[in-house]
């Protein structure tokens, strides 16, 4: 188990008592996010699907790496790592 800082994007802070960062413990990305979700279920619902994968328009970064380019939610985390929850932004004229 490592203690990790989870950065919360501005629009989701209302589901985390206004906090911009939450410390949580876990062995991998999914476990850390689930630990955050145990205290803040509405926040987790906006980040993760029931199957434990990130929602379509959400990206999770471990440090400066998108976890989709690592082992996804199974990516191991280390003490003091920083996880960032970010929107996946897309669209267009059509």
């Amino acid at each position: 188990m490592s203690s990790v800082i989870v950065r919360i994007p501005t629009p989701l802070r209302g589901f985390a008592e206004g906090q911009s960062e939450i410390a949580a413990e876990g062995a991998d990305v999914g476990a850390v996010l689930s630990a955050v979700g145990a205290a803040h279920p509405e926040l987790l619902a906006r980040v993760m699907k029931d199957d434990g994968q990130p929602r379509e328009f959400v990206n999770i970064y471990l440090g400066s790496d998108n976890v989709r380019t690592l082992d996804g939610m199974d990516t191991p985390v280390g003490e003091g790592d920083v996880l960032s929850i970010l929107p996946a932004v897309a669209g267009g004229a059509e």
Partner: protein
Amino acid sequence: MNRISLPAPLREELSTIAVDGYPYETCGVLVGACADDEVRVEKVFQARNLNTERARDRYVLDPDDLMSADLAAREAGLEIVGFWHTHPDHPARPSETDRQAAWDGYSYVILSVSGARVEDLRSWRLNGEGFVEEQVAA
């Protein structure tokens, strides 16, 4: 109505990128501060459009660029307040594709761009299922 303040130099920065990028969509991140129902933009960042197959009418904002903008924002004591993108030869109104990806709580600035100039700039906020326009101030 929500209000977004976008100072003239930042607006010009966006216009230059929009015209240079035409006929392709360009996109980026708005960094600033929020207070109640007013958003103040202090910096704009351009991001890569990863949708190269349909770059004339679609964009996928490079998440690595978004991550960099988030770091820069936090270092400056600011936050990501929204995103901007262009609609080449289309009105500055959000499409269904825009709506599907949008989050509540961010401003989405759209620039309508023709070959030579920006025809219109509008800002939108998702409110549950639909977009609501917000007032753009200097």
